[in-house]
């Protein structure tokens, strides 16, 4: 039951008061262990021990159940149900070791048994099923003997719940009553409040009373076992008192109400002068009367912690000590060292967060394993929290592990205190090259017999340059398709250019296409000078236009073309004689105008231009 102080052992304790009615339901095989890893053959032992085999009715027995195994997580067992005893869970301690990849863990569950009546009782076997194998403990027999009655006058006397002191009357309202109180009503956040519940009775109870915990919203609760039983005098009457305490830690500031506490009990509904002289049959057949008792709600004011918190303060309130040590002072590079930091003291141990260590260079740091050890002596929640940090030195020489820092608030002095551990210096010698562990997959291990694989894990994160923006899938971008379209366009253009150049070199008709368009363009130029320019110039343009047009049509050059050749060619192509005559007339007029000194009036020029246009259109139709 006491906290283990052995090094390398992580202890975990918690206490729970268990109402005995719920225990009835949990009897059976008690423990079922779910197989955790399939690779390892499992090896699990279970052991149950008691601190004494003979016990007085007003005393208690400690039952310890130890489960030992080579799996990393052992499950929490069900609560044992034992006839003849009230059972309280008094916490658990856990021991976990990991050596060369082999896991070994042990869990010890402690229970406090208080006898209900005298006689011989047997604690049944506990079973754990692993696959198709079952491990069990030996049954333990316990003898409960009558209490050596010596009531201490004045002070409270411990008594078993089944044992009631002398009772005079039954059934009246003040025969049974409950009280609920707290030790302080104004506290700081995370400071302990002790909630005390007392059940006074001076009548025989038909069954175990059912205590219903009030609503503790806004608080972190911690049960404070064991239940205390004693007798006390209230208003001149002797009462048997059962007392249950609960530690409360407010989580935030403000006003909170601890709800109404309720207790349901079954009392005898007839008079009985002496509980020991009850008629057996009357007692047996009587059903009793159910009574529901209430205690008033309690208001608590939770104050915020004062400002000027230290930077590393993380909410711890109480009184603490800090210590740090390593498992070795001399180590080789790449060999792990365990740094153990222990915070111990009075306060909400469970909620303490890891102390800060700054400037831990030259070490590779692995995950922290934390464990805590809780004790509830004097109804104050206290204990220690242990942080194990595995460090692997990356270089050799004298390396310093800097001091760990931890801050807390002390409610008594209303001040913040900062603790600092000693810095630890390690002597790191270079490891021989072959001993450096290579963290790699199993494939590499078989390839090189010299490489030992210690750990099978994912690869470490990458620390390259920061991401330079969203890397998108290219084919979903518009520019991809636009680029594709433009390349397609480029192809089309080069194909068009190719075709064009091919035709230009092989196809004379293609090369000279658009002769009509060109002729019209030249005629337009002629219109510009028809009224202003000299007649010779105008008719020159007119004749040039017609000759160029005919040259394109006849695939000849305009310069070498004569009127006679034109007429001949047109006759060959079966052009209408009328048209040839008109053309001849026009061209002769042009010649005459170009070389004759006389001027041609504007009307004459217009007529010639009209005639030229008509002839070109007619020829375009005929000369395909």
């Amino acid at each position, binding site marked *: 039951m006491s906290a283990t102080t052995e090094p390398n052992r992580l202890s975990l304790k918690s206490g729970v008061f268990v109402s005995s009615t719920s225990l009835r339901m949990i009897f059976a095989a008690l423990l079922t262990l779910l197989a955790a890893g399939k690779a390892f053959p499992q090896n699990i032992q279970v052991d149950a021990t008691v601190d004494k085999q003979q016990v007085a009715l007003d005393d208690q027995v400690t039952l310890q159940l130890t489960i030992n195994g080579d799996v990393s997580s052992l499950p929490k067992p069900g609560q044992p149900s034992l006839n003849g005893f009230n059972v309280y869970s008094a916490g658990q301690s856990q021991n976990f070791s990991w050596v060369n990849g082999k896991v070994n863990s042990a869990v010890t569950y402690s229970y406090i048994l208080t006898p209900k009546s005298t006689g011989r009782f047997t604690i049944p076997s506990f079973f754990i099923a692993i696959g198709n194998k079952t491990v069990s403990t030996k049954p333990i027999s316990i003898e409960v003997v009558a209490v050596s009655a010596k009531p201490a006058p004045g002070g409270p006397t411990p008594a078993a719940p089944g044992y009631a002191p002398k009772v005079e009357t039954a059934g009246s309202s003040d025969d049974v009553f409950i009280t609920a109180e707290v030790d302080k009503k104004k506290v700081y956040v995370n400071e302990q409040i002790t909630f005390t519940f007392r059940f006074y009775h001076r009548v025989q109870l038909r069954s175990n009373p059912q205590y219903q915990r009030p609503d503790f919203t806004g608080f972190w609760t911690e049960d404070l076992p064991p239940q205390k039983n004693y007798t006390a005098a209230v208003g001149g009457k002797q009462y048997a008192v059962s007392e249950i305490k609960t530690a409360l830690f407010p989580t935030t500031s403000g006003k909170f109400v601890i709800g109404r506490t309720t207790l349901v009990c079954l009392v005898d509904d007839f008079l009985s002068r002496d509980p020991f002289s009850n008629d057996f049959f009357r007692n047996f057949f009587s059903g009793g009367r159910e009574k529901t008792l209430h205690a008033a709600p309690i208001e608590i004011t939770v104050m915020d912690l004062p400002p000027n918190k230290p930077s590393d303060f993380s909410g711890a309130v109480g009184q603490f000590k800090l210590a740090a040590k390593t498992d070795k002072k001399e180590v080789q590079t790449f060999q792990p060292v365990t740094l153990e930091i222990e915070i111990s003291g009075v306060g909400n141990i469970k909620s303490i967060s890891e102390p800060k260590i700054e400037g831990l260079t030259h070490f590779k740091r692995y995950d922290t394993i934390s464990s805590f050890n809780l004790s509830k002596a004097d109804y104050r929640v206290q204990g220690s929290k242990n942080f194990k940090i595995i460090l692997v030195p990356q270089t050799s020489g004298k390396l310093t592990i800097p001091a760990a820092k931890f801050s807390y608030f002390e409610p008594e002095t209303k001040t913040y205190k900062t603790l600092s551990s000693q810095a630890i210096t390690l002597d790191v010698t270079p490891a021989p090259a072959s001993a450096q562990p290579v963290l790699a997959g199993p494939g590499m291990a078989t390839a090189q017999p010299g490489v030992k694989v210690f750990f099978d894990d994912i690869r470490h994160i990458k620390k390259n340059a920061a991401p330079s*923006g969203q890397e998108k899938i290219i084919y979903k971008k518009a520019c991809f398709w636009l680029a594709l379209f433009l390349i397609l366009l480029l192809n089309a253009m080069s194909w068009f250019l190719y075709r064009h150049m091919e035709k230009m070199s092989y196809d004379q008709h293609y090369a000279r296409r658009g002769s009509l368009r060109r002729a019209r363009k030249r005629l337009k130029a002629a219109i510009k000078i028809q009224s202003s320019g000299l007649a010779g110039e105008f008719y020159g343009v007119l004749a040039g236009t017609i000759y160029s047009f005919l040259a394109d049509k006849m695939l000849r050059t305009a310069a070498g073309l004569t009127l006679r050749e034109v007429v001949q060619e047109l006759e060959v192509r079966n052009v209408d004689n009328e048209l040839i005559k008109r053309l001849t007339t026009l061209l002769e007029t042009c010649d005459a105008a170009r070389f004759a000194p006389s001027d041609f009036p504007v009307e004459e020029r217009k007529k010639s231009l009209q005639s030229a246009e008509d002839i070109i259109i007619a020829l375009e139709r005929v000369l395909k």
Partner: protein
Amino acid sequence: MKDMKIVITMFLLVFVILILLFICVMPARVKSNAQEKWSQANLAYEQGKFEESVAFYNDLLAQECGNADLYYNLGDAYYRTGKSGKALLNYRRAERLSPRDENIRFNLKYLRARINSSETEENILLRFGRSFFYFFSLNELSAAVLILFLIFSIVMALYLFRKISSIGLKVISIVFGIVLIWAGVRIYLDDSVKEAVVVVSKAEARNGPGTEYQVIFTAPDGEEVVVLSREKGWMEIGLPSRGLKGWVTGESVELLKGP
């Protein structure tokens, strides 16, 4: 005169295409605080504050700063917090962008081995073919298509105008043809197959989209599935390797490629 104009336009077009190619391949603009967030996330991871680093990495993703390294680190951080499905999902996203990265492949293989105890046996030829088919990333293939198409067009033009012999054109045609088909099939698969990963500890697949239907099978965290259809917040998933189909709630799987 006119021919010269066409030739100049073509040269300009090639220039425009080159600029577009560059825009396609370049990632988006760098966010100003990305470097700071990235360092914070990595530091949190190294200090063992994995939840915190997950949050930082996700912040970066929300700011559109996702690349293969970020997805990889996020996968690592998720793995450390015990979320195998989320880890696998992000490794897959990293692999999609950077398929030959040794670390990504290692972690993916490691995680898959942890999730599926019995790995499906695959023909060695099939496996080789598969790894060859997925050797290049989609982006690499897409970029290759654009570049090869441009080279092909230029070679084609040079050939047409009698500047080079036909051998160059034949070689580039074959290479371009192969890459075009390869990229086409990859893009088609990427676009049509909706891959997803189970991200809850146990996804219950039912016979229809609703809780009133019978559960027909369950898939573990990290199981890789294909989403076949969607209806009222339910997704029809398929496990092609086992021939199973069923409906799961929308939040139990996460799509690899976004909605």
